């Protein structure tokens, strides 16, 4: 499922504020740059508001954001809906005891980590990132939360790349 509210006038404005940078980080990739959206306070606010409206009455107690652009959108959502924010980070960035989840990249593997104790069993969680491509990173994020006993209610992203085959464990994503 994508575009929670296609008819919402705010969506068109959000799309128009995302800059496409060709051939970054390598030839052939059309990079979706959200930093230009962050330069427009009204549009940035609309982006956060759209997510807050969707999640505020769903009893979500955890918003997990994926390093690093998930750290930009996740905390404002968490604050607005009364949830805690949990950063999911690249290896060796988190100082305390962590659990790790490996995932596959186009070439090679990477790893996502979460602090032990950040999330408690049966907490309802939302995962936030700026963009979903294959869903590999989001799957790693969901696995971390589920290993801690949380229930992943949904994954929320600003941008979905339509041409890539998405393979998600969870039923829902926005």
């Amino acid at each position: 499922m994508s575009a929670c509210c296609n008819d919402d006038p705010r969506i068109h404005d959000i799309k128009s504020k995302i800059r496409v940078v060709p051939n970054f980080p390598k030839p052939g990739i059309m990079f979706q740059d959200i930093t230009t959206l962050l330069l427009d306070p009204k549009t940035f606010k609309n982006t956060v508001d759209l997510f807050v409206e969707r999640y505020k009455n769903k009893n979500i107690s955890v918003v997990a954001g994926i390093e690093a652009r998930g750290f930009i959108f996740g905390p404002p959502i968490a604050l607005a809906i009364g949830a805690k924010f949990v950063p999911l980070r690249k290896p060796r960035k988190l100082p305390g005891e962590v659990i790790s989840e490996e995932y596959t990249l186009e070439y090679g593997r990477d790893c996502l980590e979460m602090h032990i104790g950040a999330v408690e069993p049966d907490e309802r969680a939302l995962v936030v990132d700026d963009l979903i491509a294959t869903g590999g990173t989001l799957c790693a994020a969901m696995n971390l939360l589920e290993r801690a006993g949380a229930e992943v209610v949904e994954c929320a992203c600003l941008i979905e790349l339509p041409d890539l085959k998405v393979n998600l464990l969870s039923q829902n994503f926005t």
Partner: protein
Amino acid sequence: MFAAENGLKGDPRLQAISQAIRVIPHFPKQGIMFQDITTLLLNHKAFKDTVDIFVDRYRDMGISVVAGIEARGFMFGPSIALAIGAKFIPLRKPGKLPGEVISQAYELEYGTDCLEMHVGAVLPGERTVVIDDLVATGGTLSAAINLLERMEAEVVECACVIGLSDLKGKRKLHGKPLYILVEPREIEDCC
């Protein structure tokens, strides 16, 4: 300057914020008492109070830009920017920003690192605040100030949740006003 020295003396929010920060000894290496703000982010009230204190300070100062230093500055900066109607600019490690950038090198204890900002993100004359979770030597903040000033923005203040107590009594860091909420804690203070 520390918030407690500037209008917030005895504010119970500051004590709660301080106590919500976890100290991890010997990370990333021996001898360093790492100030872990992830536990602050797990405490909704303390996290909200942190943001609110900065928002209350900056909302009437005509600030149009909040610049956050990767990656923990990203956890605080955007919420402040949204509340005061400012834009948010991420200052990032090399090779992360996709568009045309300017770069500023700065010194680490061993070696150098580099901070980058998108060209065109900030306009000349814009009043800016730089935000990070912690200030130690001020090297990273200085690099951030340089990037903004090279684009002819005005850095009004640097804001950090945690600042070393060497900075107590000092109002400025490298010529720029500095605003800090709490000092680092020792391991014995941990609850």
